[in-house]
């Protein structure tokens, strides 16, 4: 486990690991966010997100992790600084990014099939084509046979699978997930975490993940960005060196996993009242 602590005033990007580091597909440069009324949510955040990895934003509640994710998504504008995705500055949402919402954000009047195909529908992809793509992704997240169900007929966990399938269906390079498992029950969440690992390994996409759960962060992440309390800064970047074998259950007993959880807890503790 390597931990690089950034000085509180730090605006510099974290030093990349020597040699083998993949290129940064998302770069956050000195981003600030001040809400109307003067609440400062983010104070000079600089970060890089390596391609093909899962990076988690973790911090005390209300620290602005979701705000940062939505700025990267182009859903809310930054007050200062810039975000580059694939070298291009973010001005709004883009084809190369897709989003998985905390509350699923499914259209209750649309079937699973239409919800999953919605991104493609908005892009003007012909019906038969987009439905074929959607069917593939529905099967992939384990919902085969539920294509013509409506969201209210599904459990919370299944609804989030629909949200995930929708994000995957547009085949973006970067998938952003805002506390995607926080509204599902504990058992389902564990299952999700295991499947997410598999997905990251197979897809070769870059995942940006927001959570407030330390265990979840350590379990799923290649890299964890610890944010401080508001106004938020990067307080540390942690790369748990967990060997992810074939048995996902083993991870939770791995000493590197447990050490990382403990280390992050020690660091976050000081932000609690």
């Amino acid at each position, binding site marked *: 486990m390597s931990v690089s602590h950034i000085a509180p005033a730090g605006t510099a990007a974290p030093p990349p690991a020597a040699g083998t580091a993949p290129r940064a597909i998302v770069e956050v440069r000195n981003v600030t966010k001040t809400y109307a009324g003067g609440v400062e949510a983010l104070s000079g955040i600089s970060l890089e997100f390596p391609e093909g990895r899962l990076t988690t934003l973790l911090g005390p509640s209300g620290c602005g992790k979701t705000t940062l994710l939505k700025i990267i998504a*182009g859903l809310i504008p930054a007050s200062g600084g810039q975000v580059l995705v694939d070298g291009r500055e973010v001005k709004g949402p883009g084809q190369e990014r897709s989003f998985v*919402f905390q509350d699923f954000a499914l259209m209750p009047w649309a079937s699973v099939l239409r919800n999953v195909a919605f991104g493609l*529908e908005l892009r003007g992809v012909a019906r038969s084509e987009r439905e074929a793509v959607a069917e593939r992704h529905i099967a992939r997240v384990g919902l085969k046979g539920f294509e013509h169900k409506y969201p209210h007929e599904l459990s919370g966990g299944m609804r989030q699978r629909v949200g995930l399938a929708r994000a995957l269906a547009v085949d973006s390079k970067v998938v952003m997930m805002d506390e995607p498992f926080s509204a599902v029950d504990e058992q389902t969440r564990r299952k999700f975490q295991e499947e997410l690992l598999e997905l990251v390994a197979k897809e070769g996409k870059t995942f940006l993940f927001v959570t407030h759960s330390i265990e979840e962060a350590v379990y799923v992440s290649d890299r964890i960005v610890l944010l401080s309390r508001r106004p938020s800064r990067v307080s540390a970047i942690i790369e748990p060196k967990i060997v992810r074998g074939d048995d996902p259950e083993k991870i939770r007993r791995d000493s590197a996993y447990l050490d990382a959880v403990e280390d992050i807890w020690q660091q976050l503790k000081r932000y609690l009242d």
Partner: protein
Amino acid sequence: MQTTDVAPTVAALPSVREASRLRDILIHPLVLRIVSFAAVLGLWEYAGRIPLSAAFPTFLETLVGLRDIAADGSLGKAFLITLKPLLIGLSVSVVLGVGLGVLMGLHRPSEWLIAPIFIIAQAAPLAALIPVLTFAYGIGLTAKVLTVCIMAMPVIVLNTLGAVRNTPQSLLEMARSFLASRSQSIRHVILPSASPMIFSGLRLGSAAAFIGVILAELLITPTGIGDIISYNQSVADYPKMYAAILSIIVFAVLFIELLERIEVSLFRPEKRP
């Protein structure tokens, strides 16, 4: 770990099962509705037999009156006359009301400009304005159509405004993140999401339109159903008078029920059985 299977003993007892089956029948929606109707009509019949007033016929007398005015064709003719201002006024109210409501919901300045009129109109006792309408537009169709409009439009406009405003923020964000244009957001997210509340406004507006048309027929010039009511009142043929009132109530209820069917079949696929 110890596991004990608890047998479902209750289900095994036949008397309990029979009792619960009886209860299932008793609380069946259709049974309860029939009970509700029977209670009201029974009370009517009873009140008419006391008698409550010489001017209050029993339910059965009213049915005879209804048969008479239906048989001589006067009821059918009256309906055709009453439906004209009703349908014209209601159509104008629906088109203009939903249009203005959507406009205001999407565009704040027009809300500030237009909404106060309807908020005041909804609170004001509009029936008091009917003499003014008569003064300005005479006693013809125009005044009656306008009466229907001023009764029906406020609730349609304000419900539509509220419906559009109440679009879940996360659905709007979802549409934006999947690159929806403004018009795509309106067509694919805002309107479908608003449709239940718009339709509830239409149902309330239709009910108000029925009140409006009968008011107009009683207060401006007696025509149609209003004529049957006021004529039979003047000749003290109360069963026919109540038959006319009953028929318009039944018609209004059926009309509103029909609206609900249309809504479900056109806009709410997830509610179809």
